[in-house]
């Protein structure tokens, strides 16, 4: 085939049109043998409700999240009874001293024999099996389904169950937010179980014990920033 001016110019235009241009989050480096395309996007650490992050080596910070619309409490920075919400406010609405609370699990967290433990929601239900907000806290435990959280739950947690979370005596229940795993070198890693707000409902199996069910309600349950409605200017 004869190469005409028109064909030649079309080929030049096609080569020019195939130039790679960098967009958001993309870096390019042109070389004689090609154009290397790289991403400047780092892995997304999505700030989901209840996301647990190691703070130092003995503390964990937990992003705010809701269970049936209620915010869990943590002990204040100096320890003691849980009185500070996960978003860093006190029960009276004032800002907690020391900012966002962290949970101190200490140098020797409760772990099972192979180094697994949990950060778990813990609460008690009322006479109608509804969550009592003042009892909603986050605890560290080796087993979320044993009464003391430290010993293997005899008679529970077997390989086959009816599902849900087995309740504990006294209408109490724990639900794991994240699993802690201690490595052979002693470092703690977190594996997130809950990535959104939660709903809870109990399926009573007697006066004292129930099967408990939790299901996600998605990012919509995240408290997020509260914006003040503004009045449009009329001037």
């Amino acid at each position: 085939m004869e190469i005409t001016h028109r064909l030649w110019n079309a080929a030049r235009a096609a080569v020019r049109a195939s130039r790679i241009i960098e967009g958001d989050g993309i870096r390019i480096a042109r070389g004689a043998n090609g154009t290397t395309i790289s991403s400047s996007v780092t892995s997304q650490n999505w700030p989901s409700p209840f996301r647990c992050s190691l703070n130092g080596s003995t503390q964990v910070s937990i992003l705010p999240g809701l269970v049936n619309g209620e915010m869990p409490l943590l002990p204040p920075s100096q320890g003691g009874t849980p009185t500070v919400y996960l978003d860093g406010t006190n029960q009276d609405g004032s800002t907690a001293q020391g900012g966002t609370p962290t949970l101190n699990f200490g140098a020797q967290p409760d772990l099972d024999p192979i180094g697994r433990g949990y950060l778990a929601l813990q609460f008690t239900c009322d006479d109608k099996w509804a969550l009592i907000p003042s009892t909603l806290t986050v605890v560290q435990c080796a087993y979320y389904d044993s009464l003391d959280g430290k010993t293997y739950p005899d008679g529970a947690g077997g390989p086959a169950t009816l599902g849900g979370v087995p309740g504990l005596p006294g209408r109490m229940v724990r639900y794991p937010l994240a699993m802690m795993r201690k490595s052979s070198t002693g470092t703690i890693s977190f594996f997130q179980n809950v990535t959104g707000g939660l709903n809870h409902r109990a399926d009573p199996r007697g006066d004292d014990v129930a099967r408990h069910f939790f299901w996600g309600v998605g990012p919509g349950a995240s408290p997020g920033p509260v914006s003040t409605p503004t009045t449009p200017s009329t001037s």
Partner: protein
Amino acid sequence: MKIPRILASSWNALRREFRRNRPMPGRGIRLYRGAGGCVVTLSPSQLFHHPWEISTAWRPDSTIQPLGGQWTATLRPGFVDGKDVTIDIPIGGQVTGGPVTTVASNLTDETAPALVLSSWRDPIASAGFSDDGRGNLVTLPAAGYPAYFSTIGVQSPDAGSAALAAGVGAPSANQPTRYLLGTDIFLTMPRLASTAQQVTVLDPETDSQSIQIQTVFQPAFVGPLTASGTGSRAWLSATSQWTSPQNPTPEEALLGTAVQPNTDQILIATLWMVSPPNPSQTAAPDASWMAVPQYETWWNLNHAALNIAPAAPPDPITFPYAETLADGVGQNVINSLLSPINDQSQEISAYLNQANFQGLFFSI
């Protein structure tokens, strides 16, 4: 006529420009080159991490011939009811010299357990043969694959001989040459129990019914044991083509032959393997192939089961005052007359009162 002149310098400049524009993958980028263009995507490591995220690796093994190794998959830890999931791994054998045993290894273990991918389905080849009703043997169309793969140069699936006869799906000269194989990764959760209906044949003259339908409990399915000796709550497996456990049909429940499956399962992902152009073989992927996961499950799961225990079969209706009728023959006659009613009662009861421990997965 004026003949256009292209200077060697112009030609070489265009070649250099063309070469400079050739895309090459850098950090966090994956390229899929095809005849129609080059697809640029972020590599999985750059995207949002989620439970069940799959990483694949080629594990060289000279004992596996002719491939020289096998593909394995590790998954980012996922949870069911807050418990970490396991993968069965063989231990012993070549490493320890002892017998090979299987243990369930947690996904959160320091050395992540890997699924060995060894069975593949072929979505491009014909699904088999059939009779067209006129005595002719015809090839069935292939199962096919997601449309994405046709954009990166995967061969078109076999259209089947009926379509070819109608002029559809005929191979063209410019047919892409990449091949595709698939395997499914799924999660299994044992049910608390499984049950089977059992039909006992009776004598209508003495028992007033010809069948009795009872429910028999079968032992719960025992999963693989973990290193600590406890049973695994839920585990991952790979198979060429996953199908959901089949629950009994209403007809089976009515006839008293229903057998409940002993596990619940959910598909996590399909792992597709894409060959380079013109692969030397298409039976199984070798090191030169590329893995592309297609996820079905993104989030951690909870599991809840129905807890419908079977009711005892109804007692048959009898007429106990006929013993003296016709020297006792009347009793047999009346029993036989009642038998169809009692049989229907048994069947309806078996249908309505069948045991069910089927579970449901839901995300959190």
